[in-house]
């Protein structure tokens, strides 16, 4: 009963929060486009559908590339890649961050010290430099592999933040009580500590999601993205490589950038909205 009341209060403030609503709407819009888009696309993304470059028209909604490929078809497929990278990369980054953060924060002592040093090292080495090297190793790359690399290098700040939270929670009375009653560490972490920072974990995931998308776009742009399929970053790379700027083919490089900016921006705005929902102090009355 009490649990339900709590949920209702949360939902009440969640729906009232304008930032959360706007962000969620934008993300869902692009998600819908990802799901419905391929049905609307008339051409194969790599198919040479027209002779040369055309501006947007009824036939080619987003115009065509220099080679006559349909930009809209590429765009919807690229969107799918973007969401996939966000889910897998962001999810993995959060997961590693959670595991490292909980382990370090809960145990303290030497384990904390070692994990802390590890986190700091991964923090200092620029992610992109590592990704560059890994990506250059593999001649054939898929989106899933790319997402896994991104996730494996994006976790440090999450681990640090979660560690700090765990650190402050583990000295509370209810944790001491569970320890006295003989609960195992793993169970204490998942049943006593984790629920108290659920909001924090959700927000971490959202930020990791956005970060993974931006990372992937950067990697794709320097030509180290997936080799077998199209992504939004690759579209930008091709457009710059084939002189879309100089030729004024704005329809080629505008959609991918707008989509990435909108999705990641909406994620960030959702994050602020959630913060306000979870933290009563921040609500503007």
């Amino acid at each position: 009963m009490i649990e339900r009341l709590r949920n209702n209060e949360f939902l009440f403030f969640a729906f009232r929060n304008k930032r959360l609503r706007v962000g969620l709407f934008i993300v869902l819009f692009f998600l819908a486009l990802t799901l419905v888009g391929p049905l609307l696309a008339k051409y194969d993304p790599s198919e040479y559908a027209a002779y040369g470059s055309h501006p947007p028209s009824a036939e080619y909604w987003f115009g065509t590339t220099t080679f006559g490929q349909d930009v809209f078809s590429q765009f919807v497929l690229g969107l799918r890649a973007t969401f996939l990278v966000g889910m897998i990369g962001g999810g993995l980054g959060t997961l590693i961050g959670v595991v490292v953060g909980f382990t370090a924060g809960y145990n303290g002592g030497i384990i904390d010290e070692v994990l802390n040093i590890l986190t700091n090292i991964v923090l200092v080495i620029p992610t992109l430099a590592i990704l560059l090297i890994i990506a250059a190793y593999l001649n054939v790359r898929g989106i899933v592999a790319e997402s896994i690399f991104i996730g494996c290098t994006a976790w440090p700040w999450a681990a640090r933040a979660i560690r700090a939270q765990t650190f402050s929670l583990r000295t509370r009375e209810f944790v001491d009580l569970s320890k006295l009653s003989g609960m195992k560490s793993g169970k204490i972490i998942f049943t006593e500590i984790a629920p108290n920072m659920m909001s924090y974990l959700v927000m971490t995931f959202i930020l990791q999601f956005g970060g993974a998308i931006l990372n992937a776009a950067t990697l794709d742009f320097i030509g180290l993205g997936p080799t077998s399929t199209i992504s939004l970053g690759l579209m930008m790379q091709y457009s710059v490589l084939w002189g879309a700027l100089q030729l004024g083919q704005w329809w080629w490089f505008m959609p991918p950038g707008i989509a990435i900016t909108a999705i990641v921006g909406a994620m960030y705005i959702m994050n602020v909205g959630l913060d306000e929902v979870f933290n009563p102090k921040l609500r503007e009355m």
Partner: protein
Amino acid sequence: MRRYFGRKFLIYGLTFFLAVTVDWLIPRFMPGDPISNILSRSLLNAEGAQQMYDYYERVFGLDLPVWQQYLNFWGSLLHGDLGISAYLFPQPVTRVIWRAVPYDAFLLLPSILLSWWAGNKFGAYAARTKRLDNTILPIGYILTATPYMWLGILLAWIFGIVLGIFPIAGAYSYSMQPHLSWLFIKDVILHWFLPFASLFLVGFGGWAIGMRNMIIYELEADYSHYLEALGAPRSLIRKYAFRNAILPQLTGLALQLGVIVAGALVTEVVFSYPGIGYLLLSAIQNQDYFLIQGCFLFIIIGILIANFAIDIAYVIVDPRTRMGMLGDSS
């Protein structure tokens, strides 16, 4: 304070050691070995190819045991010898990189420092000012969510192609030779402005939002309410809030360095700006392992130095580190 720096140095030392090891691994784990790449360009019969292979193996020191190769790598590294670039043969990698470093410094330092300073000031000003919060902060979110290269492409297209105000390629006009004159300086600044602006804008959005959120947290803290209850003027409370909020922002700067460097890399690619990023891309495209190694190493060293500078700044800003009260939270 000694403990603080001791820890930092330990971490930096370990990081440097690991980074150099990874760096050493690059050519050894790449698909296809560099020697075969060189040999595949020349037409040789099998016997001749084997002889050439042995020759190159000796030249590059690849016939030694692995541990010896590793130690040799450290040895030549400490002598500042990073090998010869294959892509810009026969120039030494160190010289190629030194030529690119000034452009990076020229681009990165102003954009990082200015965006951090301006973003913090603006974010602190916008926090809890309803009108600004609702109109201008969404812009901040959009800016910080923009991929660096796309903002670069956008600015290049609008200001370079459509309006034709700024040039969009290179560090100076190809028709000019570097020399000291107003004409040349003006040219360099014109070429610098758009890459700078795209780096600045993305950074600015992020810092403004971060600061705004921090200030709101600080204004809800007990000391703020206490000051308020004492009847302190609003500007004074905000001043204290700002001083407290600047610390996480400083840590944030250290955390963001890798992202900013990556951003600079792609921005340089968009504008063909001859910094390390542009060099690295050419090195990857031409499979020039020594140059890739060199660029990677320089990026690491740059980031370590920047991190160290931030640590010093932290000691200056935060008295607790000076007193040794802050062990591990920073």
